[in-house]
Structures are given as structure tokens and as C-alpha cells.
């Protein structure tokens, strides 16, 4: 079963996954704002409306709360909707249906129903779109039992995890960093899944574990490559899923390296870094730590419009390099 592997962009990989899902299962359909003839704000749905028609690629009115709720209702009653938010920021308008309904319906009804809905959220800063179009809200949803929350970092994982999400009987929230959409990478043809709840070691190393999410995986890898010249050997763990989190992979890595740094774009406080750090502090890996844990996250501010300020708001490669150097001081 050696599938042909081609280079696709992250956006193309998602589009291909949605097409495969629709080909395989006629219950799968797409909903969202301007996903039809416009092709989606980030051209992720592209020409799918031409291939699958307006019955399966549905432009909704600008109604996030209602739209998300309709997707939940369709999912509960036999369909398999994939709902696109135009920007992840607009999840805030739909929180009621996501948090109170989608996440809890199965539980509240004693397991009598499932909610196999997939929601996609273009997220993150870096486009000059300012405070209401640049947020990273994944930890908000990660705080809600009943939801699964994933952040694929590569085209390969974007396709495989979306297909896993469609196959999953429970609500899966996919956060896609907007700056990744154009990034290219190898993607196998045809159907495959990448499991939800499983982290990936992107680079092996002995001196320091960096646990990163989404676009920060690439920045961490860049920093690790730069530090290799200085003899600093970094292991980069791509968390991939923030709920349910793959604790074991992180614990094993920290036991090996004895140092932990968490890098994520969302606001630093009360976020993914806090969770990973606490999880390690509670685990057997705690005894292996040779230095305090470091978190690099977004500044405690909304995302500013000015491009220099915007960059300064989220961790950049030089920040990771500087923090990693500091953290491994005295190791080599």
C-alpha cells in the first residue's frame, strides 16, 4: 500500500481530505461562510462547490451561533458536517453551541447520542489583521471535556488528522494556523489517518525538550537547527492534540533530556504551557528535571495591528534560541 507522495500546501491537503471524506461518505458535507463560489476566505474549500454542488458545500449567512448549532443538530441526527469558521476568533460568537451543546450532549443524554461534528478554525497572528482576527483560542476549547482539540502543524498531518476527525464519533475542533496554509510538504495520495491524541517527535535530541504546537513547531525546529552548531541537541515534540493530550510522549522525552520548554503562540498565562508544565510536575519526569521549566507564549495583550508590535507579541525564532541557550547553560 505505497501511496504516491506529492508536495501539497497545507490548504490543499485539507481540501483533499474534505474531498476524500465526501467521496467516501455521502453524509459528509461542508458548511461555512463564503466557502462556495468564493472558495473560503483562505481558499481552503477552493473549487469544491463546483465538484460537489451547493447541496454539500453550503454557504451560510453570517450567523456563527446558528450555523454551528445547525451543524451540531445535523451531526446528532445522522449527518457528518464539517463546519468552517471564517476566522477562529468568531468561535466566540458560537461558544454556546460548541461548549454547552456539542461538548455535552452525549454526556447529558447518558450516551444516547453522539455528536460527530468537525469544526475548522483558521487561527493565529502574522497577517496584520489586528486584535479581532488574529487570536489563538485553542486552549479555551481545550478546557472543555467532551471536545477534542487538534492543531496539525504540517500538510501531512492536516490531511490525516482531518480524516481522523471525520471518522471520530465525537466533536473535533481543528485549529489551523493561517500562516501554514501556503506551506508545502509531502502528502500521500488517498485515504490515511493520523491519530488524534498522539504527539510526534519531530526531532530527537538529548539536551532539552521543546514541546511546541502548530506554527511554533516549525519555529522550534529552526531554532534547534541553529543551535546544533553550538553543540546544543534539542528534541522537538509536536503536541498535535491538546485534548486529549499525549502525556506519555512528553514525559518520556523529558526523562531523557531533563529540561523542558513549552512554545506556543496563544497568550502565555493559563494556557497550554501551563498544562504541559503542570502535567510534568505531577509526573515521574519531575525528578529528572535539571532546571526550571520555561514557557514561551504570547504577550499578555491582544494582537496589535502595527507589524513590529505584532511580531513582538508572539515568540519568534530568536526568542526560542535565546531561551534555549539560557536553559541548557552548563550542560555542555
Amino acid at each position, binding site marked *: 500500500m505505497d501511496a504516491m507522495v506529492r508536495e501539497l500546501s497545507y490548504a490543499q491537503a485539507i481540501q483533499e481530505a474534505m474531498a476524500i471524506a465526501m467521496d467516501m461518505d455521502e453524509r459528509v458535507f461542508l458548511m461555512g*461562510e*463564503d466557502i*462556495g*463560489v*468564493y*472558495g473560503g*476566505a483562505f481558499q481552503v474549500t477552493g473549487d469544491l462547490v463546483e465538484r460537489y454542488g451547493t447541496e454539500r458545500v453550503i*454557504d451560510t*449567512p*453570517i*450567523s*456563527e*451561533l*446558528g450555523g454551528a448549532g445547525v451543524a451540531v443538530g445535523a451531526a446528532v441526527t445522522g449527518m457528518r458536517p464539517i463546519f468552517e469558521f471564517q476566522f477562529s*476568533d*468568531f468561535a466566540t*460568537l458560537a461558544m454556546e453551541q460548541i461548549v454547552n451543546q456539542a461538548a455535552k450532549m452525549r454526556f447529558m443524554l447518558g450516551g444516547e447520542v453522539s455528536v460527530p461534528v468537525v469544526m475548522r478554525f483558521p487561527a493565529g497572528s502574522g*497577517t*496584520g*489583521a*489586528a*486584535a*479581532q*482576527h488574529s487570536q489563538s483560542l485553542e486552549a479555551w476549547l481545550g478546557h472543555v471535556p467532551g471536545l477534542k482539540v487538534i492543531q496539525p502543524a504540517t500538510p501531512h498531518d492536516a490531511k490525516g488528522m482531518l480524516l481522523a476527525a471525520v471518522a471520530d464519533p465525537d466533536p473535533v475542533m481543528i485549529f489551523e494556523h493561517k500562516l501554514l496554509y501556503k506551506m508545502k510538504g509531502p502528502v500521500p495520495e488517498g485515504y490515511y489517518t493520523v491519530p488524534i491524541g498522539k504527539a510526534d517527535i519531530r526531532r530527537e535530541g538529548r539536551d532539552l525538550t521543546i514541546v511546541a504546537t502548530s506554527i511554533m513547531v516549525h519555529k522550534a525546529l529552526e531554532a534547534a537547527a541553529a543551535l546544533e552548531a553550538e553543540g546544543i541537541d534539542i528534541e522537538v515534540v509536536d503536541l498535535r492534540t491538546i485534548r486529549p493530550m499525549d502525556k506519555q510522549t512528553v514525559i518520556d522525552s523529558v526523562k531523557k533530556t531533563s529540561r523542558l520548554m513549552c512554545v506556543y503562540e496563544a497568550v502565555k498565562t493559563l494556557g497550554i504551557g501551563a498544562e504541559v508544565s503542570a502535567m510534568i510536575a505531577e509526573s515521574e519526569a519531575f525528578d529528572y528535571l535539571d532546571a526550571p521549566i520555561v514557557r514561551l507564549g504570547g*504577550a*499578555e*495583550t*491582544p494582537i*496589535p*495591528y*502595527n*507589524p*513590529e*508590535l505584532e511580531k*513582538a*507579541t508572539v515568540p519568534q525564532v530568536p526568542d526560542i534560541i535565546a531561551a534555549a541557550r539560557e536553559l541548557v547553560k552548563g550542560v555542555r
Partner: protein
Amino acid sequence: MAGASKAVADSRANLPFVYRQYSAEQLKQVLHKMYLIRRFEEGAEECYTRGLIHGTMHLSIGQEASAMGICMPLAEDDQITSTHRGHGHCIAKGAEVKRMFAEFFGKTTGYCKGRGGSMHIADVAKGNLGANGIVAGGIPIAVGAGLSSKMMKTGKVVVSFFGDGANNEGAFHEALNMAAIWKLPVIFVCENNGYGMSTSTARSTAVKNIADRAAAYSMPGVIVNGNIFSEVAEASHQAVARARAGEGPTLIESKTYRHRGHSKSDRNRYRTKEEIEDWMSNRDPITLFESELREFGFIDDKGIEAIRDAVAQEIADGIEFAKASPSPDIRTVQDYVYTEQA
């Protein structure tokens, strides 16, 4: 606003509303501002194309009469909430283009000190509580401002601008209902340009006219041709009078059209070239207003030329001001998140 004298008024008795209501000087000012909006957006667009401005922007070219007509009867301390397509509202409410350009350039002299950009342009001193990145986000805020006006007895009227797409958000419905039950001095202005991004109102909205929604909230729903300044100003005038008299809100639907794409990344695949061409050639609000002014003898070619020249100068000066202004210091990245306290 101080209008035309009695004798002049009599001689204009058969002209449309604004030509009876306002002085020649005031009407020339309106033309000036309509040009200012148009040239400001063309200037911003050019700066964007040349890479001087980043992010994205939503141009209101083609909708100038709507912004100007609605703001015409407003007093300086009346307030507005605006939208992502808000440059025109901002200028119509009295903002200076140089500080708007400075904001687009991300400079400290900008209205939001470089933090907001086009999508959050505001001029709080002139009563503009801000554009909004969230469709319908400003509508309840306008109702809140109306509630303040009533509770604090300031007499202020509040206008909430929003697009046709916004009328399908829950916030729209909740806000209109509250404004109606509490009889607040709010004017809801739907600038219906036919599309919310790529989705036509026919595909997005169950009623034919957005103004039909007014009936559900027991307020007047008025439809105007948003490209005819006088029609818009007249409807606004009446709604302001009703609001000031404590009779409650009005919904005005201003039917108009945006000449440009939704934002900088629009390929216009949901509408035809002919449709765009028709609105640009036959229903341009500035052309329409200008020819009325000429026809009714309020202005001649020389007067128009003078306005165009003055506007061009103001735009050039504004861009220079923006370029020469300082960028924010990186160390201030966490400023303005909370109120500074001594």
C-alpha cells in the same frame, strides 16, 4: 444645523430635501467630504499596493452618499458605531484624514496609536466609537450608548452602521428589540450593498428588504436609495428628530453598492463585470450629487475643480504626515490593555 434663509428657502421649494434644508456652503462641504472619502480610500489602496500599508482593508468606494447623508443631521457629540467598511463613516463624522493614514501606517499619531489599523479605525473625540472587526459587533454597543444617553440625559443620538450581512447575526435582533422596548435614541443604519462578502442578500436573508425586519421590533423601517445624498439625509433627519423626541429607534436601509471587492483578496467571482460597471457608470453617488448641485446652481465647474484640488492636497499632506510620524516603541507592546492607574 443652521440652514438656508427664508427667502432662499422659498426659491428652493420644489427641490429635494437637502437643497431646501442646507446652505450652499454646507452642501459644498458635503461634496468636499464625499471626495475626501473617495480619495482617502484610493490613496490607502495605492499605499497598500505599494506595500506601505499591511494587513487588509475594506473600501467603501461607491457608498459615500450613505455615510455622508446619515451623518449630516448629527451633532458633533452624537455618536456612531461603525463597521469593517468604516473609513467613510469616520470621515463623515469629522475625522482628519492625516490621523487615519497614520493609523493605517501603524504610527503613534494614528487614531488608535497604531494598534487598530483600518478595521478598528475610530475617532472617539468626534463621537466615532470605532469600526469593528466583528460583523454586527457594534450594534449592541450602539444600543448601550443609547441607554447611556437616556440614563445620563445627554440628549445624544447614536447611529449604528452595519451591512446587510450583519442582519443575520443574533446580535442584530437582540439589539433592535432592546432599543425598541426601552425607546432608546438609536438609529440602525443598514448599508445594504447587495452582498456580505460573496453571499447575496437573496441567498442569505429570508426577507426581501432588511427594512422589513423593523416590523418585528415595532419600529419604523425606511428604505432609501443610498446613492442619493438627499434621500439618505432626509431619512436620517427624520430618524434623528424621532430619537431626540424620545420616540425611540428607527431602522434605515440604505441601498447601495461597493465598487471594489470585499477586501484585498476578493476575485469578484460572485458578481458580473456588467453589474459592477453599471453601478460605477450610472449610479455613482458623487457623480449624482455633483450633477444635482450643478443643475440647481449651487456650484459651477470652477467650484468643483477647487474642491478636487483641495482634497488632493489634503490627501497628499495626510500621507506625508503618516510617513513622517514615529512608529510605536516595541517596549510599549503591552500598553493600553488595562487602564493606567496612578
